[in-house]
């Protein structure tokens, strides 16, 4: 079932940032949410992950854990890579004490191998590049075998090659975990390389829903403006 979002509404004070949006993401599929900065993309992820409360609407998930990869990785500075990845297994009430140290080491090694970073367990986040930090945060996200993975601008601040690598890992993690994934992004390359479907938001409303090919076909004024990155069009910055 993945995720079903129905008539979701969220306002901050008197500004409605999510205005009655609905969408579905099936297991093993990736939905890209695109739109201008401030259009409510990250708010959708925070609502699904439970970081903020919705005002109305429904978020139905297939159960299991929800993982989130943050824009700037959000690795714990004071912990090394091993402790970062095994954090949930060591600290979560229902998982604490369930794994021996050897089992934790094995799990962390497996997850690091999955993101192509074997052998860096003892390094601290400050010793890693931006791309490596991002991949460690992927490993941390999947350590509890989540059913839903949320990515908040996973390629932000990375060079094109690192971005491509990250995009490959998003697809790889989807295949490995069969999780329903939502990727918030501004990058057309990320949409093309990862997404099964695309949702475009503007002022908290859905203005386009379709496949990456339909987005690139530029059939509406919204998609035309977004794909061509032009200032003229129905979407106004600071609107």
């Amino acid at each position, binding site marked *: 079932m993945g995720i079903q979002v129905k008539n979701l509404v969220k306002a901050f004070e008197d500004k409605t940032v999510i205005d009655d949006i609905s969408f579905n993401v099936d297991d093993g599929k990736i939905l890209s949410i695109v739109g201008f900065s401030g259009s409510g993309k990250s708010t959708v992820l*925070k609502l699904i*992950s*439970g*970081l903020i409360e919705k005002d109305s609407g429904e978020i139905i998930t297939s159960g299991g*854990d*929800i*993982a*989130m990869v*943050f*824009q*700037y990785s*959000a*690795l*714990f*500075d004071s912990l090394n890579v091993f402790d970062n990845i095994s*954090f*949930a297994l060591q*600290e*979560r*009430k*229902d998982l*604490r004490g369930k794994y021996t140290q050897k089992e934790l080491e094995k799990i962390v090694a497996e997850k690091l191998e999955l993101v192509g970073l074997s052998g860096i367990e003892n390094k601290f986040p400050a010793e890693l590049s931006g791309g490596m930090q991002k991949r460690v945060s992927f490993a*941390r996200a999947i350590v*509890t075998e989540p059913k839903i993975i949320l990515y908040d601008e996973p390629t932000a601040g990375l060079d094109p090659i690192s971005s491509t690598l990250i995009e490959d890992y998003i697809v790889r993690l989807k295949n490995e975990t069969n999780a329903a994934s939502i990727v918030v992004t501004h990058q057309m390359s990320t949409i093309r390389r990862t997404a099964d479907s695309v949702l475009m938001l503007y002022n908290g409303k859905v203005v386009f829903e379709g496949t990456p090919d339909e987005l690139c076909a530029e059939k509406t004024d919204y998609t035309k403006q977004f794909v061509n990155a032009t200032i003229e069009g129905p979407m106004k910055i600071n609107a």
Partner: protein
Amino acid sequence: MRVIYKSTYTYKVFKLFYEQCEVFISTLGEIMFYCIEFLKGLRNFNTSFKEIMDQCARFGVSSLPITLSIVGMTSIIVSMQVAGEMVKQGGGNYVGMLMAMLIVREEGAIMAGFAIISMIGSSLASEIATMKVTEQLDAIQVLKVNPVHYLFTPRIIAGTLMMPLVVILASLFGMAGGAAAANITSGLSFKAYFDSVWFGLSMHDLNVCILKSICFGFAITLISCSCGMAAKDGAKGVGIATTKAVVWSFVAIVIIDLLIAAAFFY
């Protein structure tokens, strides 16, 4: 008409007062909320011994040089000014007693509290505030770990346990500093000084001193962690949270000091 009314100084002063009251009440509410959350977390206590020890080392060991310096210096300053006059008036045998009462009842705890706030309280607040603005606290929450329980418990336990030890060490250091200053400036012998120390001290004083330092340790760590947790708006927010933690901790320990003095010595 409305514009004229809003441009008056009276309106601005009252508006500022109202805003400050609002900030005061909301900060008090935040601290109470986090205090209750922390206490709830104690029911399912699960903090590792190592984590508590790490925080104890940070609280006790790393703050010790500055705490000993501040308490030692203030004791030397007081002793230098008091001992000479008392020796002249024939009260040399009471210098130790006076210093003991001053340090154990008041100066040791309050000056150590100020030192701990400057060094540890500010560092706790900025550490947690930085975690907040870099989404590390959100990451903890998404991983289904309660950030209040995870971050507050070892820090508050360490603060509550270590503060009495720091205050006792600082008080001993202060009394030794006072003895040295009295000896150098007024020629008062160490024997005369330390003999009179015992006249000024009672178990009641020591118990109150320990109780006070436990309350200080709890208040400083709770307030500092709470202010850090409530930070927002990036780097500026970290600065505001740190300042708030320091100011609120200062005010809190003075109020606690007043209440304990009123309860036990009035």
